[in-house]
């Protein structure tokens, strides 16, 4: 194996989809990622039903990082008594006509005889004519032992397994490869070892459940409910899938009406479902994860698949049902932007919270330190601490001048003072936010730059306060202390950052339709339904549909609308209607079954007095006039994705520069800029925007005024030296104004008379220095210098 890393991944708890998927995924290996052939990435017949064809990332790891189908299980444990089981299998096989292998006795070659192997060991051989019956018997035994282990009893009328038959493992893979010219080597290959995939299908001969493996599957005829007659005439099925969604992974099977979507959209949804700000867990008060996302008023989807209920996804809800109108309105919904109703946001729609955790590990400090405050307040804190009550001027102010709404220190008569002996205000720095234990009060609102915990170095007795970094206001959620023996070893400070939907935040429906919030539109300006007065929560552009063909989303809207009017949930499982379809004929075609489904919802809508296909007459909220066209409107379940502007915005007017080049630094955290690169330069040149180009590349970058000696034509020779004191003694009386001030002198000609100030990029100075190091002189001819 050429791989030395990547054998473990961190199980991220971004939301429950992601957490769950981490335990249901397999990677083919880093080696195959570089391989040019795409054969390894393909979904082969033996993978059908084991690996999900939908749930794989797009791009480089496509088909290499796979997820198990929902029903697929892995044998993770070796047999309890392998020897006894193998002996039993050998006995059963012998009873079915196998001639056990013996030393010095060669196995006769196929096709008259078929070898039998168990976990790669040759057990013996049997007459080919007997193989089919033997394999059939083994399958029956598998179904029986499976029923015994799953249900505990057998259906009435079945003969229970006898003696060694009882030991046949239900997950045993019975792959019978018949003789075929040019085909794989024939044989009966039995597998009982761990690390195999298996999945349940219906064994048609007995009508019972059987677990099949991937090699086994390639040589079986498994009927798919929506597969009709299977394409080849006279094909006799031995097994049947347990349902239409058998091939899908858990995440893929949660997409409503996914069979109506263009296939890549379902793949995108599998990715985006795992990036959603949802409910990763329920024990928030007991967790100290570094970062947790949480949606505050989640809802259960109206349109849901059967698997949604089967997997109890309501325990970890992931989004909100939004009333979505599909129309081009105000042009703020162009190019996948979306307009949210401001009133909805005010009422808590799609509101999220990020929990961040800061761990203070006192044991790792050398010399050891403890939590606490500086007993002697610094001069600054004296002013800030004692004068705090009533002295509003001491509070930090924003750039616009308004005060931060500070937590008022609890008053002397408050319950906290009498019961908990908390001092109302301390004579130390940050007393408003921090207790005498050096830790913040839960519930405190904290602004960037404010101190929130403090650690004392025992040797010096000085306290060091840590200030909040970043640019967001946080709430202190809780403080947890760990340790014993009268000494705290660790402290966890959980901070809560409220994240209401903000312009630039990303949202997505469950159909791979993502969009960026572009406006909080006033409720009064939103269009409203003439019949009901309903204003949409969300407006998306109709252009999002023709090229992407996410009909599932339209159907979800239609189905949800009908369901909501009836006060019910709606089954949005993919491939509906095929489970009950008549297999004996091709009559139940795709189109017919689909038309039936749409008709059902349309009839429901009509019975509630709405238009059949989800359209409604709407009136513009701005003018009060009716729209010429009917607007498609209905509830769609929307997910809020974790990509938020608050984490990503980058803006700079002035800030840090690189010491060597004096050009702006890069990096969001450091307050750096975004590179204005060559292609951007080309664009401005093409526009002839010379002034803007000069502004970007020079004025806002490393503009500097450098002294050049016109006589020596050198950029490097002028240097500053202090002006010499004259001998008049005036300096002693402070009358020599220029004394001590620096004066520019050229090193090579010893005079400053020809020095001129030249504005140029500082990087040119750097270039001149580098050239000088190579003994190349850079001559600068100044136009107005007397030569």
């Amino acid at each position, binding site marked *: 194996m050429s791989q030395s890393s990547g054998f473990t991944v961190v199980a991220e708890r971004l939301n429950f989809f992601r957490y769950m998927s981490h335990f249901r995924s397999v990677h083919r290996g880093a080696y195959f990622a570089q391989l040019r052939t795409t054969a390894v990435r393909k979904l082969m017949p033996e993978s059908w039903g084991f690996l999900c064809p939908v749930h794989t990332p797009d791009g480089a790891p496509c088909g290499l990082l796979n997820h198990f189908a929902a029903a697929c299980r892995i044998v993770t444990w070796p047999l309890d008594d392998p020897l006894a089981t193998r002996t039993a299998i050998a006995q059963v096989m012998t009873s079915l006509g196998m001639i056990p292998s013996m030393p010095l006795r060669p196995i006769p070659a196929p096709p008259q005889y078929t070898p039998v192997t168990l976990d790669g060991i040759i057990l013996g051989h049997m007459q080919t004519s007997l193989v089919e019956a033997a394999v059939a018997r083994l399958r029956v035994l598998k179904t029986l032992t499976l029923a015994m282990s799953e249900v505990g009893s057998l259906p009435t009328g079945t003969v229970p397994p006898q003696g060694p038959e009882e030991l046949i493992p239900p997950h045993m893979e019975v792959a019978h490869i018949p003789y075929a010219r040019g085909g794989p080597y024939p044989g009966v290959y039995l597998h009982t070892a761990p690390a195999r995939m298996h999945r349940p299908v219906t064994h048609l001969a007995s009508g019972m459940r059987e677990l099949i493996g991937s090699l086994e599957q390639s040589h079986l005829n498994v009927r798919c409910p929506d597969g009709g007659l299977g394409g080849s005439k006279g094909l006799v099925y031995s097994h049947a899938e347990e349902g239409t969604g058998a091939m899908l992974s858990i995440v893929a099977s949660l997409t409503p009406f996914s069979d109506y979507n263009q296939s890549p959209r379902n793949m995108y949804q599998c990715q985006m479902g795992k990036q959603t700000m949802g409910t990763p867990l329920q024990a928030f008060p007991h967790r100290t994860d570094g970062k947790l996302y949480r949606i505050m008023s989640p809802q259960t989807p109206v349109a849901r698949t059967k698997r949604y209920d089967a997997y109890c996804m309501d325990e970890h809800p992931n989004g909100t049902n939004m009333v979505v109108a599909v129309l081009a309105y105000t042009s703020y919904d162009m190019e996948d932007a979306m307009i949210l109703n401001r009133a909805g946001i005010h009422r808590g729609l799609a509101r999220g919270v990020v929990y961040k955790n800061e761990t203070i590990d006192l044991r790792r400090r050398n010399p050891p330190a403890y939590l606490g405050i500086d007993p002697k307040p610094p001069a600054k804190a004296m002013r800030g601490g004692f004068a705090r009550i009533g002295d509003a001027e001491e509070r930090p102010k924003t750039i616009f001048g308004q005060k931060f709404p500070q937590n008022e220190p609890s008053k002397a008569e408050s319950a906290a003072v009498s019961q908990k002996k908390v001092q109302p205000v301390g004579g130390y720095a940050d007393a408003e936010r921090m207790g005498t234990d050096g830790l913040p009060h839960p519930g405190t609102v904290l602004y960037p730059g404010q101190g929130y915990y403090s650690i004392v170095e025992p040797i010096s007795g000085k306290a060091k306060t840590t200030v909040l970094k970043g640019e967001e206001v946080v709430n202190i959620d809780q403080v947890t202390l760990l340790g014993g023996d009268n000494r705290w070893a660790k402290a966890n400070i959980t901070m809560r950052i409220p994240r209401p939907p903000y312009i630039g935040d990303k949202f997505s429906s469950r159909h791979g339709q993502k969009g960026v919030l572009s406006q909080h539109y006033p409720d*009064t300006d939103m269009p409203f339904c003439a019949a009901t007065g309903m204003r949409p929560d969300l407006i998306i552009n109709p252009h999002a549909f023709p090229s992407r063909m996410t009909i599932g989303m339209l159907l979800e809207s239609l189905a949800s609308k009908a369901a909501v009017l009836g006060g019910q949930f709606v089954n949005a499982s993919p491939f509906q209607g095929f489970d009950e379809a008549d297999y004996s004929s091709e009559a139940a075609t795709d189109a017919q079954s689909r038309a039936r489904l749409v008709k059902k919802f349309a009839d429901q809508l009509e019975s509630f007095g709405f238009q059949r296909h989800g359209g409604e007459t709407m009136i513009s909220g701005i003018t009060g006039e*009716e729209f010429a066209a009917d607007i498609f409107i209905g509830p769609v379940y929307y997910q809020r994705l974790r990509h938020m502007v608050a984490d990503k915005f980058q803006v700079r007017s002035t800030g840090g520069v690189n010491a060597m080049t004096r050009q702006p630094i890069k990096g969001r955290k450091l307050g750096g800029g975004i590179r204005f690169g060559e292609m951007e330069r080309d664009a401005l040149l093409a526009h002839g925007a010379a002034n803007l180009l000069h502004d970007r590349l020079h004025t806002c970058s490393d503009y500097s005024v450098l002294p050049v000696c016109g006589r020596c034509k050198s950029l490097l020779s002028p240097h500053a030296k202090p002006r010499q004191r004259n001998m008049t003694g005036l300096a002693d009386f402070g009358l020599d104004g220029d004394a001590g001030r620096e004066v520019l002198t050229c090193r090579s000609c010893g005079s400053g008379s020809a020095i001129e100030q030249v504005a140029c990029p500082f990087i040119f100075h750097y270039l001149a220095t580098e050239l000088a190091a190579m003994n190349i002189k850079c001559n600068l001819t100044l136009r107005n210098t007397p030569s």
Partner: protein
Amino acid sequence: MAPANKPSTRRTPQVRLRNYDSDDYCEFELLGTDVSVANALRRIILSHVPTIAIELVEIERNSTVLNDEFIAHRLGLIPIVSTDVGILTSPYEANDDKQCDELEYELNVRCTGDETMDVTSEDLRPHNSWPNALPVGHSQRPQGSAAQGNAADERPIVIVKMRRGQELKLKAMARKGTGKDHAKWSPVATARFQYRPDIQLDQDALSRLSFQEKESFLNSIPRGKMIFRLNPHTSEIEVNDAEAYLFDRQIFERMEEFSLPPDAITIRPLPDYFIFKVEGTGVLPCATIVSMAIDILREKLAVLHTEVQNQENFAPMLSDAAA
């Protein structure tokens, strides 16, 4: 479907009350005026009629499962009976003489039982001289209060649920405000108007259809049997309830299917006939909301009028108009 012909400039707007069974719902017709007036009225109802809502919350103790700002947000959304809103001063209206009115509430609950406890708007204790400003559905509602409702179907609003040992203690401050600032101050669930359809039938064209065909034609239209009726004596289609028609296209599609000429049925919205439906939240009776909205609209027009008159540039135009 824009109004086809313009209404005359000379108007005598009329209001006809249609349905006012409870204070929470009213339906009226607005006639003889333009869309601009109807829409202005709708917009003012939604976002300019002032109400009372909790604005500031000071949390002293909170050991519930919901965090501070979430509880504060929930408190803000509780509808508070706002019949006194007319005599209150909002922060925007406050000046040196008039102070902004602040209505205080207190909440102090601790769960001591083993069962899950609901903290509701009932636990919110008013702490001021505004006895009417109680949460909607509060059992302490004073007699003779304008907001009358059936107390049986009004249950207090759940703020948070608690288990044993959890505690919530806070002070809340309500202020007067409008829906323009925050949706919590909006006095209505929805306020809307719709156009009244004017349906003209061309009986000659319709007579192409037999009685049975007419029946199946009506059946194929959404609400067809409500909009139209089939006269069994004359076997003609007659308009039954024009308002049941919602301006959808399907009727015209059906007409094509039944090979009727496009002018067999002509429908246009009446340009000066609006049906208003206002659904209140209980903070104010709908009648009050509408009359307050009209007052606000009038006030806004008065402000505009004085501004226009004060502008010298407008003076000649105004005198022209008068002449």
